[in-house]
């Protein structure tokens, strides 16, 4: 039986972690993810979990400890944001290349500088090519559900890769929402035991993790890693299907909102999708065929599926909550544009950078975006592909 509660995004993550009962958490506090290890360490102190909590001296050490414990055969987790993730940089790549299915609960926050503690996606988007699975959430319910599904995806024999469960700093991490929680037993059974085929603490088969690979092997190692990430797409769908059986809540690679007959679409990641849904509802009442695609799985990227979902739209806005400093496109803009080009899509695409450093995104802002899309469709051309929304000119 499900339980109803009111939790912030960080509380929801801590609650999911309590239910998952991982073997090890190693973490260092950083706003806005601090509460996750704070709440979890309380559960450790209260004996509500069997986990070992490692209070480390930096995020570099947090990720290193997670890699070490995961390699030892322990299901491991950490939490961080922004600069904390930046300090994990080398280890992010190591966790992926060593094929260790650990979990990072990321609370998205702008990277310095100027220093800022509010939401944008520059931290996780910077790490988008680190080899991790990345799943994003619109609200607290989703981040809770995504975390419950994290280990079954990451540990699947066809995947065995680390997974990043992302939510928007403050917007969901600190906002309290109604939430439906699973029973402890349901989560425990769904996640199951972690039994890696090989691990450092196996006395029957000593294992060396992370050995040097000369040129003769490195490329093959990366190719195998890429194949595993590719497999994560189907596994994510399969796990979501199993999860729906116990919760009734269904998840795909992305969510399509009013896309069936949409002529104007927005592709967006995270909490601003909720705001966009309200804009879609308002525009629909006025007869505008607006629709939304909300990315859930960003790595691996479901390009073909998104191009298919966009095949009938006249104009689409690709919304990046990060600046890519390339004068060409943002990460989401690049991925979706490539997918549209490959599919010979007729949709006119425009790529917006928005919401940096916690800049508020209102329903009226998203209505403005749809109005711009209608203008683009009428004129039949996009003057400027890469542009900014909500910045003072």
């Amino acid at each position, binding site marked *: 039986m499900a339980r109803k509660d009111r939790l912030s995004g960080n509380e929801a993550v801590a609650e999911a972690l309590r239910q998952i009962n991982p073997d090890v958490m190693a973490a260092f506090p950083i706003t806005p993810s601090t509460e996750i290890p704070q709440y979890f360490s309380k559960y450790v102190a209260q004996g509500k979990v069997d986990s070992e909590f490692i209070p480390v001296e930096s995020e570099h050490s947090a990720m290193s400890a997670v890699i070490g414990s995961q390699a030892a055969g322990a299901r491991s987790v950490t939490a961080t944001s922004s600069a904390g993730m930046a300090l994990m940089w080398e280890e992010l790549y190591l966790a992926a290349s060593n094929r260790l299915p650990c979990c990072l609960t990321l609370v998205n926050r702008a990277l310095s500088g100027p220093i800022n503690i509010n939401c944008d996606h520059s931290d996780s988007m910077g790490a988008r090519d680190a080899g991790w699975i990345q799943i994003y959430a619109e609200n607290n319910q989703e981040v809770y559900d995504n975390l419950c599904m994290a280990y079954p995806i990451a540990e699947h024999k066809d995947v065995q890769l680390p997974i990043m469960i992302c939510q928007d700093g403050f917007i969901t991490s600190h906002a309290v929402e109604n939430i439906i929680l699973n029973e402890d037993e349901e989560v425990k059974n769904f996640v199951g035991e972690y039994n890696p085929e*090989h691990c450092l603490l196996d006395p029957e088969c000593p294992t060396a993790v992370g050995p040097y690979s000369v040129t003769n092997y490195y490329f093959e190692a990366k190719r195998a890693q890429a194949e595993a990430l590719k497999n994560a797409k189907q596994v994510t769908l399969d796990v979501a299907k199993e999860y729906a059986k116990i919760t009734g809540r269904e998840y795909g690679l992305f969510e399509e909102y009013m896309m069936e007959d949409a002529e104007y679409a927005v592709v967006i990641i995270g909490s601003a999708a909720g705001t966009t849904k309200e804009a879609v509802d308002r525009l629909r009442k006025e007869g505008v065929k607006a629709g939304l695609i909300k990315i859930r799985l960003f790595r691996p990227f479901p390009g073909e599926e998104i191009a298919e979902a966009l095949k009938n739209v006249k104009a689409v806005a690709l919304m990046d909550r990060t600046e890519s400093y390339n004068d060409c496109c943002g990460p989401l803009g690049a991925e979706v544009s490539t997918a549209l080009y490959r599919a010979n899509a007729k949709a006119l695409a425009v790529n917006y950078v928005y919401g940096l450093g916690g800049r508020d995104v209102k329903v009226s802002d998203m209505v403005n975006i749809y109005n711009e899309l209608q203008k683009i469709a009428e004129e039949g051309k996009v003057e400027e592909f890469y542009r900014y929304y909500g910045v003072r000119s």
Partner: protein
Amino acid sequence: MVDKTNINKVGLKCSYKDLTLGMMVYGEKTSEAFKTGEWTSVQPVVDEEKCINCLMCVPVCPDSCITVVDGKRSPFDYDHCKGCGICVKNCPPKAISMKGVK
């Protein structure tokens, strides 16, 4: 499908699908079993007529590919020779030279 726990079976002919997960090495004392000699494109070759069996090549080999057996220099262990050429430089009668293998 190769036996991935047997490092002997993991080599240059393996498809990326047959290498170990994350390139992990399973089992103990694998340095002897794993043929690092396949990394090189050149190998030292001895001219037996010039070799005076002074054994100067033995201690300088960083991969212990030249040993002493019954007081004499052993044949080179090409399974582990990485072709560094130090034995060539150290051979007093210049009996060792590098030859391409591929």
